[in-house]
């Protein structure tokens, strides 16, 4: 059946039921499209499990991050709710006060992440506070009528969730008929609470987690996109009824709290009793994610410097969306397992060792083809070389050992990286970057100790004062003690030794009688000439003076850190078999996530070959009439047709559009058009 038709633009294809096979699984396509057939099933399974792991991990992290915010919100709800209950008893208050308790939730510009936040927020509220939650989005609510409809629909449905099925029919019927007004809402609320009240003896378990007469929480997910009128109307209407049922609003705000005042006039905003809540900034959020997911040995897959750079750039320059970052990471996982046959070894060490044993001959060849492995082979003695290149079993042995090395390398890398970060993050101007991810990228890119930035940061570190130095050393000890690395005992010992030496120094200082300090001498002189002279002398003496004990020690500490860096922070691509665990085709990622269609068009049009095409048209157009001079006005039909096609293609691509002012004229739209 063709999809070309003049009367229809939409075609549905349904294979006949008997023909319809069990639809192919994802694994099938993984296998089909995979560059190499080896171990594809195992790879796919590993990929899936890793993805799942990452997903649950990120979700957990997000929950933890949001916990504080949610606690605050819940306590806010509690406060406003207790106020409502008090009011209920005081009749005077009830008639007077019409303020709606409102939480303004400033979430930041990463709108795409908000969905998740709101979902977990409503879950938390549902579990602990109230069953009556409505989530409203601007796109569903073009008018106040739609808003009320949506609101009632959601509230009445969630009511059903709590009460079991018996009420369902009744609710369904009524929902479509119900006139959506505030009165209906109040009636519904009264009946609902009454019902739960009367049912509580029987259903203690379900309702006990909610409060007495639970508040109705209405969440506006994207406050900014609501039309002013709808918001105003809703606030005004509901403020009339606030005494009759406990309503709480939550505004999700992406920009700044000022937006409330620009959206709502004073007369309306004065009806709200607003409290501000700030969520964690998305940058901190990202740092946590990177810290917990990329800078651990927990997940076998690692990202190379370029890939990480691409992901971070997309985050920083495009959307600030943590979700997108995670999505990019997920794509990395898929790509890695899909394109690299050896990724089958990209799993936990024990499992990987087992898998090495069952590698096929082809896979062994794949290992031999790895550039890093070739380098490794070349560094071996000749007999070993031959064995590695010809005998599969010895290769497997070597691979096992190398994998172990790689694992150890990672185990050491991350704690030392953190230690170094402790130092560099407190230096003025942050020569190696403020965030640990920048440091990580620098270390991955090339030997960090060869960079200028590293030089300057060491120099700055040599000027640190003692208290800073001591706290840093203490932090480092903490990091190293808590990390699983095996070789750290020694380092910890050494650092502790430094610490005790500092301690001693301090004591020594206290005991020592202070001679007249040069400062005091300075104070005596008032003559400018003398002052200058002493200052010069002082400078001289400082230059020639022997280093104090403290300075010696400081040098020693910095040198020691330097040696640690040189030893442990070797860039990953110097390690043998790094290809197995590092995903490094940043181009794929950039191409698929951060595509540049305009550049694609541009290069395609810029392509000399298509230019030739265009020029050949010009040529034929130029030659056509000269050959047939008699009818110089008559353009060849084919060329005319091609011209027409070219124009319509340009129009489709959006380069030109017919100009309104004159017939047969077009206006250029791109690249400096009108």
């Amino acid at each position, binding site marked *: 059946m063709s999809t070309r038709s003049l009367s229809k633009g939409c075609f549905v294809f349904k294979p006949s039921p008997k023909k319809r096979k069990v639809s192919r699984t994802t694994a099938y396509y993984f296998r089909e499209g995979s560059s190499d057939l080896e171990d594809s099933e195992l790879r796919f399974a590993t990929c899936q499990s890793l993805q799942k792991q990452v997903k649950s991990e990120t979700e957990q992290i997000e929950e933890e991050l949001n916990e504080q915010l949610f606690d605050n919100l819940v306590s806010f709800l509690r406060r406003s709710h207790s106020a409502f209950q008090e009011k209920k008893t005081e009749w005077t208050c009830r008639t007077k006060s019409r303020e709606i308790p409102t939480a303004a939730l400033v979430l930041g510009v990463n709108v795409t992440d908000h969905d998740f936040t709101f979902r977990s927020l409503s879950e938390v509220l549902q579990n602990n506070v109230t069953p009556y939650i409505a989530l409203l989005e601007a796109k569903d609510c073009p008018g106040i009528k739609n808003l009320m409809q949506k609101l009632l629909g959601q509230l009445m449905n969630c009511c059903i969730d709590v009460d079991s099925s018996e009420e369902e029919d009744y609710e369904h019927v009524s929902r479509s008929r119900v006139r959506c007004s505030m009165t209906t809402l109040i009636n519904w609320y009264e009946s609902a609470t009454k019902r739960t009240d009367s049912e509580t003896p029987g259903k203690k378990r379900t309702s006990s987690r909610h409060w007495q007469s639970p508040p109705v929480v209405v969440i506006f997910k994207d406050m900014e996109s609501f039309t002013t009128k709808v918001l105003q109307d809703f606030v005004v209407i509901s403020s009339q009824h606030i005494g009759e049922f406990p309503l709480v609003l939550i505004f999700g705000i992406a920009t700044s709290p000022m937006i409330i005042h620009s959206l709502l006039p004073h007369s309306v905003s004065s009806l709200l009793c607003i409290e501000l809540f700030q969520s964690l900034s998305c940058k901190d959020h990202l740092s946590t994610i990177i810290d917990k997911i990329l800078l651990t040995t927990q997940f076998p897959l690692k990202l190379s410097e370029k890939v990480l750079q691409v992901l971070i750039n997309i985050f920083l320059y495009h959307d600030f969306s943590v979700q997108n970052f995670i999505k990019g990471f997920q794509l990395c996982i898929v790509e890695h397992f899909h394109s690299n046959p050896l990724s089958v070894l990209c799993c936990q060490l024990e499992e990987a060792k087992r898998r090495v044993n069952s590698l096929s001959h082809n896979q062994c060849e794949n290992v031999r083809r790895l550039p890093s492995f070739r380098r490794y082979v070349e560094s071996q003695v000749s007999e070993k070389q031959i064995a590695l290149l010809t005998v599969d079993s010895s290769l497997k042995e070597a691979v096992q050992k190398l994998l172990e090395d790689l694992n150890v390398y990672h185990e050491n890398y991350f704690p030392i990286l953190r230690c170094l970060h402790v130092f560099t993050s407190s230096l003025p101007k942050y020569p190696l970057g403020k965030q640990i991810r920048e440091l990580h990228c620098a270390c991955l890119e090339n030997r960090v100790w060869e960079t200028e930035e590293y030089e300057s940061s060491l120099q700055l570190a040599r000027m640190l004062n003692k208290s800073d130095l001591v706290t840093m050393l203490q932090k480092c000890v903490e990091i190293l003690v808590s990390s699983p690395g095996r070789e750290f005992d020694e380092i910890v010992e050494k650092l502790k030794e430094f610490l005790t030496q500092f301690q001693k120094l301090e004591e020594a200082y206290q005991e020592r009688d202070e001679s007249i300090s040069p400062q005091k001498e300075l104070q005596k002189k008032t003559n400018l000439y003398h002052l200058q002279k002493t200052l010069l002398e002082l400078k001289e003496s400082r230059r020639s003076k022997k280093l104090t004990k403290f300075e010696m020690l400081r040098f020693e500490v910095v040198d020691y850190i330097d040696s640690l860096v040189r030893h442990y922070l070797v860039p990953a691509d110097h390690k043998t078999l790094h290809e197995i665990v590092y995903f490094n085709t940043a181009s794929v990622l950039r191409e698929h996530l951060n595509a540049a269609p305009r550049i694609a068009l541009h290069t395609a049009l810029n392509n000399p070959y298509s230019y030739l095409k265009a020029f050949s048209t010009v040529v034929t157009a130029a030659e056509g009439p000269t050959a047939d001079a008699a009818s*110089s006005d008559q353009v060849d039909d084919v060329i005319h047709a091609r011209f027409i096609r070219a*124009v319509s293609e340009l129009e489709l*691509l959006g380069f030109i559009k017919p100009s309104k002012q004159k017939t047969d004229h077009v206006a250029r739209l791109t690249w400096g058009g009108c």
Partner: protein
Amino acid sequence: MSLAECRSAGALEVKFVPDEDVLRHIADDAGIKVQKGKNQLIANPKRFVKKLEAISDDEAQEVLEEKSYVAVLGVCGEESMTNGSSVGGGEVYTFQTPKRSNKMAELASELAQTPGQSAVPDPSKCPEKTAKTPQSSKRSSSSQVQQKTKKNEFVSTTPYRLRKRLADAQLESESEYSASCSEEEEGEEAQKEVSTVLSHQKTPAKTKAVSTPPSRKTLTKKKDNMNDLVEEYFEAHSSSKVLTSDRTLQKLRRKRLNQQTLHDLLQKSPLAYAAEIKELNQQYESLFSKWMLQLHLGFNIVLYGLGSKHDLLEKFRTSMLQDCVHLVVNGYFPSITVKSVSVLNSITEEVLDHIGTFRSPLDQLEFIMKRFKEDSSLELYVLIHNLDSQMLRGERSQQILAQLSSLPSIYLIASIDHINAPLMWDQAKQSLYNWLWYETTTFSPYVEETSYENSLLVQQSGSLALSSLTHVLRSLTPNARGIFRLLAQYQLENKDNASYPGLSFQDFYQQCREAFLVNSDLTLRAQLTEFRDHKLIRTKRGADGVEYLLIPVDDSTLSDFLEKEDEDI
């Protein structure tokens, strides 16, 4: 413009144009605004060559810089395919700011001094000189050589556009100017003789475009009053009138091609580089199963790049989706809509076998989402050709499609062509779509996609409308046809009246009665309802509350229609 060029074929020569010129031609600088006012270049193309003293050194440098800039671009294409190191948009779309601000002044003073002895190199000598690359002309010590290189370099870096425009300008000056700028016409003659008009563009390429005055006499005159030049300069810039010729295509005395002949003609013309294109396509076809994998993993796929992706997607459909439920949407189809008519209905009616109507597309969407969430065995592949077409690019359509595509069991694969297509999506939609981008530059002609675009200026516009008109009309009673004719004639009579509101119902009724077409206004109303249902007429309520009737078809189509009707009778 190429048509115009063929006419002046005698003068036109096809030359090799170095890449950087082509680039400059396309990636034009900030300055290429509309040709303003009298800024037309009126000059003889053979004499535009101009010596530029004291600039060449810098110029060479600039050329060099541009070269490297082009090199970067060139690499970008290859790299994106292979190793793809990042090429930011900035490198492609940079504004080339002029490197010397006083260039205008320099040129002006120079103009006053040197034009007399300007040596005009014979164009026939040019080719061998052009062979020398600008690079080689860099910094030579002997002034003699330098002198020579200046010329070379000038010739070789003259932008193609400039040459073209000079030729155009010549044509333009011969032709009559449009009436819209008549007040300038008076000055035009004098202008032609007297002035050398400075190009207002600021880039180095453009400033070279100063034409030498056409006659010696005016030259001396010019020398005398530099002030004139300055005044003219500002005069040229003060007027923002767009000068367009009224040389419409009709003047070419070519009959307009209709869709069918166009199609036939194009079929006949061979596709250039078929083999390469085929190879390219095969490359993309090897990605099919990867696409399937990624679709299954929750991503959706969008294809971009030059060339029609219709065939590619069609191939994908036939090779991968034969055994699955799938929906093909031709976005380029002129009357496709997401909302009421096409896409959602296709899903609810044909995929989900649901009978019944929905109050709003949002309800319908909700229903679909619910069904797909409930029944995990349901799977649907959606192929959309041209997601960025006129009908689908609206905010609400995109929102609905995005929400659909965010369902885990709906797999969307779509193509986009428009250069600004990605602007359709904000952050929220983009995250719903969850796109993976694939560049599929196919270089194949947009046959299908453009065949529907009946708004095209070149094609016989409204042929589709015309055929539908005749079709519908043919099935009507003679009386009804007469009614429609009346309305059409009336509309044509008023076609020059820009504020023609339409024919009021009362007048129309009167006319119909006079022509014995209807006997009561009820019958007329019934007839009009039928027209309206077929979208043959539109009613509008005027400010005075009177109902006005209009045929929403452009005048030429309407007159064509009437002619045809007359033939039939």
